[in-house]
């Protein structure tokens, strides 16, 4: 079985390589936001990317949760980043409700995935989406970020009910 272990290792390394490539692609919008002057907490950005990489490497439902979580998380990430970059003010008008609405939309999107997926991967996907949303909204204050996270959770519940 020593021989089989070398194939196992090759398989895991291949998955790691693909997860790293996917993570590098996911890092591009974060870098772009930083270049455009949107303040992004470095530790949280690394945590989000690391989480995405681990979920991708794990595969199966975790992989799907990573993709859905990232895609939905980009909504509350991109909207406030675009707003602040375009308006060039620290907190553009209605930044709090905009973050909350973007979080709600992401949550509803995650809700339909939550219906099909197992609990643990769904939680991981939701956490990733919240983390991405926090990265976008945290510049407008901690309350805005917490409100957005709450809106994501409400959206997941609503999405689940709607697709049930």
């Amino acid at each position, binding site marked *: 079985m020593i021989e089989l272990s070398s194939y196992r290792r090759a398989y895991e390394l291949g998955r790691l390589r693909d997860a790293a490539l996917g993570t590098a692609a996911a890092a591009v919008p974060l870098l772009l936001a930083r270049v455009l002057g949107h303040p992004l907490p470095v530790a949280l950005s690394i945590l989000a990317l690391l989480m995405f990489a681990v979920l991708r490497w794990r595969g199966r439902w975790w*992989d799907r949760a990573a993709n859905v979580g990232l895609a939905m998380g980009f909504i509350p990430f991109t909207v406030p980043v675009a707003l602040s970059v375009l308006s060039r003010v620290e907190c553009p008008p209605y930044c709090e409700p905009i973050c909350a609405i973007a979080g709600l939309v992401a949550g509803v999107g995650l809700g339909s995935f939550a219906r099909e997926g197992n609990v643990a991967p769904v939680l991981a996907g939701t956490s990733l989406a919240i983390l991405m949303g926090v990265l976008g909204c945290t510049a407008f204050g901690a309350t805005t970020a917490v409100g957005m996270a709450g809106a994501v959770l409400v959206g997941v519940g609503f999405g689940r009910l709607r697709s049930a």
Partner: protein
Amino acid sequence: VDAASKRQLGDDLARLADGDRSAIEPAFAALRPFVTAYCRRILSDGGDAEDAAHEALLRVFANASRYDSSRDPIPWVLAFAVNACRTAKRRRLRRREDPEVDRSMNPAQQDALLERELREAVVATIDALSPTDAEALRIAMGERPSDATFRKRVSRAMARFRLAWRHDD
């Protein structure tokens, strides 16, 4: 490789692509004899064939997460085996251990020999495909079926065309 084994191998590779680790063992059990037998056909030396098969299988597993389940698993696997065999041949040429290599051969002659052996490997790969795929590839490579067969096929097709034409009238 019969249709059922091929389907099973495709399923195992699709599970591996999805991240299902429990498919490693069945995929290995199905792939090992197939890839080893293929490498033995291409490389006459048993030791080299074992090494090339090991190398090919490592590449198959390293790339398993990229396998597209809508594709035929056999050509996908054979592509790694062909590459591993080519590398083994090249290594052997460099060591000048190949019985077919004359020590006085210059690099151009060695390249020509490698090219010929590669062509043989491609033909062996095509032979392992289904008859329809093999024929399509042979025609695409400019290897037409014999003129008599071709004329017969055209004549049969023309007969069917005439029949269809009269029915339309």
